[in-house]
Every structure is written in structure tokens, then in C-alpha cells.
């Protein structure tokens, strides 16, 4: 049982950014037909999503979010002791994107930086990781980056995924405190037997130069080996059974009940799944903010996107108890709980800025003296 409890660590703030480009789901009607798109919108709740430009990355969005959050909190980059980028959408195959963000934000060399390769569960597992390194080290403040640009790996005519994903980058600032009441709990589970359920099979080191020929797959969708494959039925059954089980166990472990939480910031997988989870766990669906309709499934960023959407423009200054839950590719799933002041939840920023220095299109750029 991977249950974690950390005292004297708090979530000091969250922020996120999305690209400016909005795709309306109904525009897919010309590709997939009216009936299919209407049914998709009804079931998933996705009516529009934001998509990145060709060379815009999740870290570009995270950079904007972090810049805003540090300014809002009055935290200087030199105070940050850890930068963790938890995502499946790195800037490069290597090095880790955390180093790029460290450099761009001016975070000192004394900081620990690395990436965690996770998708929809990246917030929950990332929080567990960051809280653990803070708990055992001398780091006072840390930045956790989450999010994905999942749409980039979807074959455009793949009806199982093309309409589902939105893109976003989010950041969480964690701080050590003197107050033992500041508490973060985390329950994490993994099921590697489902590694094929959501996968990009090519481009990794098992098949580095995979064919990019388009193949009509058995589910009726065209894809290449470099595209995302999602076995929807498998994923559905996992979420419907295993996620509610995890949440119930989390309540047991933390000796809490659903009515003790102000907000359930859950991964925005799709509307049907969220309703099923709420029903099976007796969570009040009205306390589960939904952003699928405007932002789509934004992978690991989605819980923060939903928090920012609900509280980011509120003028309230109150502490809320949040339960976050993430689940997906891996298969990986987890839940956390924490408190946060609504004044430290920033509104959603829209940004199309690209880190131009990071775009290497000619190898000799790497030899230029800066």
C-alpha cells in the first residue's frame, strides 16, 4: 500500500496556462459526421479545447504559469530548491525539461531538477515525489510542473482521440512550514499490466525509427506507430472499477468522508467517467469542477486547470480542503489531499509564447556562441 502523509508542507499556490488557439469540437463534424460528434460531445462533455502551435510546448505554458505564480507570491527564483517536470510531453528526447525550466526561470544551480514520465496521474504522483524530497531534504520551496500536449501525438483522423485532448501547462508551488497542521496525503497505485492500453509504441528506444506508415487499426481508426493508441473500453473499465476503489481507500486511510472536502479537483478524463466515479464514491458532483467543456482533457494539468477555472477569478480569501485524483496512462492512479487559500489559485492564462532559443532546427545552432 503506497500511502504517504507529510506534515509541515503546504501547497502555497497553483497556476496554469493554455494556448490561445481554440478548436471547437463541432468542427469535426465534416470529418467524422454529425451523429458521431454529437454523441462524443454528449458523452465526454468536450465542446472545445485549446491547442498549441507547432513548436509551442507544455514547458512554454508552464513557464508562463510559474512566472505569474512566483510574481504573485513574491517568491524569488533563488528560493526554489527543486524543479520537477511531470509529463509525457518533454521538449526534447533528452535532456529533461526540468533543466530547461530551471534555466529559463533563473533558478540556482543548487536546485535538484528532473523529469517524471507520467501523464494523467502526473499531479498526484508528482506531489508525492516533491513532498518526499522536501520531507527528507533541506528544500524549503519547490515547483512541480505538470501538463501535456497530447494532441500532438494523435493521428488527426483518429476518432477515439482527435476530439478529446486539450493542451495546458500547470505549476504548483510547495513550501515547507512550521505548522504541523499543514498536511499533504497521497495514495498511489500502479498497474503495469495495462501498459499497452494507452501507448505511443514508436519513437522510444525499443523501436526508435518506427515506420510512420498509416495503418488502419482494428478499431477502425488510422494511425502510425508514432501516434497515441487508446484502447477505450479497457481504459473505461479500469477507471470505473479501480479509481472508485482507490478513492474509497483514500477516505479510509485519511479517516475522512466526502463531505469534509470543499472541492474534488479530479483529472478531467471525460464527463461520463467523472459522473460514474462521483456516483460510485458518493462524492457530490457539484463539488467537482468541470472544465472539459471548454478545455478538453488536459491530461496531468486538468486538476489544476479546474481549480484555476473555479477559483482563479474569485475575490474570496479562504482556505479550502481539496482532494485531487489523477488516473491514466501507465496504468497509474492516485489521490491526494491538501489545503490551499483561494487567493493563491491564479486565473487561467492564455499564452502563445515560444522559447525561441530552445528550438533547434539546424544542428549547427548548438555550436553558436551565445
Amino acid at each position: 500500500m503506497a500511502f504517504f502523509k507529510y506534515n509541515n508542507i503546504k501547497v502555497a499556490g497553483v497556476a496554469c496556462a493554455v494556448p490561445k488557439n481554440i478548436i471547437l469540437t463541432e468542427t469535426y463534424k465534416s470529418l467524422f459526421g454529425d451523429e458521431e460528434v454529437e454523441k462524443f460531445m454528449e458523452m465526454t462533455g468536450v465542446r472545445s479545447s485549446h491547442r498549441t502551435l507547432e513548436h509551442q510546448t507544455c514547458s512554454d505554458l508552464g513557464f508562463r504559469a510559474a512566472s505569474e505564480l512566483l510574481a504573485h507570491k513574491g517568491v524569488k527564483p533563488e528560493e526554489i530548491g527543486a524543479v520537477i517536470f511531470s509529463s509525457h510531453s518533454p521538449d526534447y528526447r533528452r535532456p529533461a525539461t526540468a533543466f530547461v525550466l530551471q534555466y529559463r526561470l533563473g533558478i540556482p544551480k543548487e536546485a535538484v531538477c528532473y523529469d517524471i514520465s507520467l501523464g494523467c496521474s502526473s499531479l498526484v504522483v508528482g506531489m508525492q515525489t516533491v513532498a518526499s524530497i522536501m520531507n527528507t531534504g533541506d528544500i524549503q520551496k519547490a515547483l512541480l510542473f505538470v501538463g501535456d500536449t497530447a494532441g500532438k501525438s494523435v493521428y488527426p483522423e483518429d476518432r477515439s482521440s482527435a476530439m478529446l485532448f486539450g493542451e495546458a501547462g500547470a505549476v504548483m508551488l510547495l513550501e515547507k512550514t512550521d505548522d504541523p497542521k499543514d498536511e499533504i496525503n497521497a495514495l498511489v497505485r500502479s498497474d503495469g499490466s495495462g501498459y499497452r492500453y494507452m501507448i505511443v509504441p514508436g519513437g522510444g528506444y525499443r523501436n526508435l525509427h518506427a515506420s510512420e506508415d498509416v495503418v488502419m487499426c482494428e478499431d477502425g481508426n488510422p494511425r502510425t506507430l508514432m501516434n497515441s493508441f487508446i484502447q477505450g473500453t479497457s481504459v473505461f473499465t479500469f477507471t470505473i472499477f479501480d479509481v472508485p476503489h482507490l478513492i474509497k481507500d483514500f477516505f479510509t486511510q485519511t479517516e475522512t468522508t466526502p463531505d469534509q472536502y470543499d472541492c474534488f479537483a479530479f483529472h478531467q478524463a471525460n464527463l461520463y467517467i467523472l459522473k460514474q466515479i462521483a456516483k460510485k464514491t458518493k462524492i457530490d458532483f457539484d463539488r467537482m469542477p468541470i472544465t472539459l467543456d471548454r478545455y478538453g482533457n488536459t491530461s496531468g494539468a486538468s486538476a489544476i486547470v479546474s481549480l484555476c477555472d473555479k477559483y482563479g477569478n474569485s475575490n474570496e480569501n479562504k482556505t479550502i480542503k481539496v482532494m485531487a485524483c489523477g488516473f491514466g496512462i501507465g496504468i497509474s492512479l492516485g489521490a491526494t489531499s491538501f489545503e490551499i487559500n483561494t487567493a493563491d489559485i491564479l486565473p487561467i492564462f492564455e499564452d502563445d509564447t515560444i522559447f525561441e532559443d530552445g528550438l533547434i532546427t539546424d544542428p549547427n545552432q548548438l555550436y553558436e556562441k551565445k
Partner: protein
Amino acid sequence: MEKLLEILKGIRPDVDFANETALIDDGILDSFDVVSIISELDDEYDVQIRINELDPENFNSAEAIWKMVQELKK
């Protein structure tokens, strides 16, 4: 069985579950319908049908679904 028919009607009111015998083979139910049925069966009968146990033939008719539920409850 009556309760099962009621559940199935709730998911797809347009389908004649009492008489159809090729719900999957004829493409009457899609994967989303099957998932919805699996979720409802869990709620009503406390049976969890995992993907590796998911035999499409068990979803071809209400009677087949009912038989599967009875087997899983044993």
C-alpha cells in the same frame, strides 16, 4: 431479469432488448454502450467484468448478459 431489462432500456431506450439476439454482432451496441452496461451491472449486481473477461458473445442479448451475471455471482 426484469430489473436487467430496465437497466438496459435506461442505457439504450431505442433497442428492443427483450428480442434482439445479435446486439454486438449486428453493431446495435457500441463500445460505449457496453461500458455503460458493465458499470450498471457493477452497481446493481456487484459484479466487475474486467477487459480480459469481456467476451462480446456475452453481450449479444439480454439473456446472455443475465447468464453472465449469474455465473459471475457464483
